[in-house]
């Protein structure tokens, strides 16, 4: 293949489009080519960001969103790993529960919101339940698949070494399912962020980043919506990074993959 392009060239190429877009944006909003209500100037967006972040304590709200996200995610993933382990290792539990789970998982995540709001109200509890559900489903599916695919030859080593059931689970099933569990946790993290935003949209609109976006739309304040969307992306990005490092740490026994 062709010689690797240098880092500098790749970087230059990478920022070309974003810079071009920013210039186009600025020019069209300044020159009046685009309606500033739809495309506010960069300055306007920056000022709005400052206003929301510093004057209106958006950081506090954001912390609130993140706490909610984290609480739901932790509950959902702990329950998910436990539940999947039970299903993967017990034939009875598997046959009793898995078909129902497979049917229920087909219901699109957001479709649960109305029912959850009836059962748990519009407050914090409902939001956390919803976020936990969002993390729970991908984690169960991936953990279950991972454990089911535990390598037969290692299981045989376990037999030769007279492993007891709990040793089989701890020494073989769980570690060999780790890559799959990590994938599940990664997806769970992404879905739980989606769910946090969803919960803030559809349940009580209150403090939180979702609330900011909704309020911006209601006031027809495009700059405010943009700031909110930007922060949503930033948090999503950070969570993704977090998941990658967590994955790298949990899977440090694997040969390094070429990325």
């Amino acid at each position, binding site marked *: 293949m062709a010689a690797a392009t240098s880092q500098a060239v790749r970087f230059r190429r*990478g920022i*070309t489009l974003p810079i071009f877009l920013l210039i186009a944006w600025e020019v069209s909003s300044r020159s009046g080519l685009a309606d500033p209500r739809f495309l506010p100037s960069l300055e306007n967006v920056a000022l709005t960001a400052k206003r929301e972040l510093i004057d209106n304590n958006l950081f506090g709200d954001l912390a609130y969103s993140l706490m909610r996200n984290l609480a739901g995610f932790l509950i959902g993933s702990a329950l998910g790993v436990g539940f999947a382990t039970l299903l993967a290792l017990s034939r009875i539990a598997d046959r009793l529960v898995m078909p129902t789970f497979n049917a229920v998982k087909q219901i699109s995540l957001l479709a649960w919101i109305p029912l959850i709001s009836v059962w748990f109200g519009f407050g914090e509890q409902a939001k956390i339940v919803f976020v936990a559900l969002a993390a729970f489903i991908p984690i169960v599916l991936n953990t279950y698949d991972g454990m089911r695919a535990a390598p037969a030859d290692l299981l045989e080593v376990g037999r030769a070494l007279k492993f007891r059931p709990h040793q089989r689970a701890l020494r073989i099933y769980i570690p060999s399912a780790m890559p799959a569990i990590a994938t599940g946790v990664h997806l769970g993290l992404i879905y739980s962020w989606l769910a946090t*935003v969803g919960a803030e949209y559809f349940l009580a609109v209150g403090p939180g980043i979702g609330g900011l976006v909704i309020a911006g739309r209601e006031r027809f304040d495009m700059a405010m919506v943009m700031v909110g969307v930007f922060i949503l992306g930033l948090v999503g990005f950070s969570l993704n990074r977090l998941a990658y490092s967590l994955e790298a740490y949990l899977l440090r026994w694997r040969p390094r993959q070429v990325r």
Partner: protein
Amino acid sequence: MAVISEFFGHARLRPRKRLLGRLGTGATALVLPVAILTLWWVASDRGWLPQQILPAPAYVYEMARDMIASGEILYHTGVSLRRVIIGFAIGAALGLSLGIAMGLSEVVEDYAKPLFLAFAQIPTLGWIPLLMLLVGIDETLKIIIIAKGAFVPMAMNTFTGIRNVSPRYIEVGHALRFSRWQQLRLIILPAAIPSIFTGIRYGLTHSWTSLVGVELLASSEGLGYLLVWGRQMFWLDTVIIAMIAIGIVGFVMDKGLNSTEHLIQRWKKGEA
């Protein structure tokens, strides 16, 4: 994936337990739903929970029958399906094109990928309010949101699929003096198909989720609308029926994808 693990899983399983052994697999699968239904029935019959929080199963059943008979359910399902099909087709086509372009050309990758990744970080739900301001709340909004849901996983998986094609196969192509087009048609695309299929699968799931989201926020028809409406009127039976309909559509899409995948990937071991 599921098929492979099913296979391995059952290969290692112990002889069947007596109690469940006598019941067939199908019957065992029904134990839990029947138990839940019974509990539900008893709970509403004894009035443990108010009707608004838990309507009687019989009531839900009757309502479902009425909604099917009147064509209401079918109508809303049709509306939602039409949106998903159009949105998914647009998003998947765009995602496939971008994925192929980035996969085949490092220059395109260098230019497009950073922006694409930044774009992908923002949850689909995040775009809804912004787009509402730009394009209003009619059909265009829904199509764009659904297309976005399909676009990101499609582009990403096509890209990685093409990049992960083993250089050894490509070498075979060189040895056989394939042209670029032959290289693409005979080696790269077939080898990337499993990954592209993963993209289709995630894309369709995301499209369907996005649809429900956008219909919850801004719609006057469709299954998502049915949910909101039922919720607002405190008609929980309608909410439950809409959820079931959403689940059934999801299930049918999932099965459809599975059989298509098997058909296309007959050469893959263990999935036949």
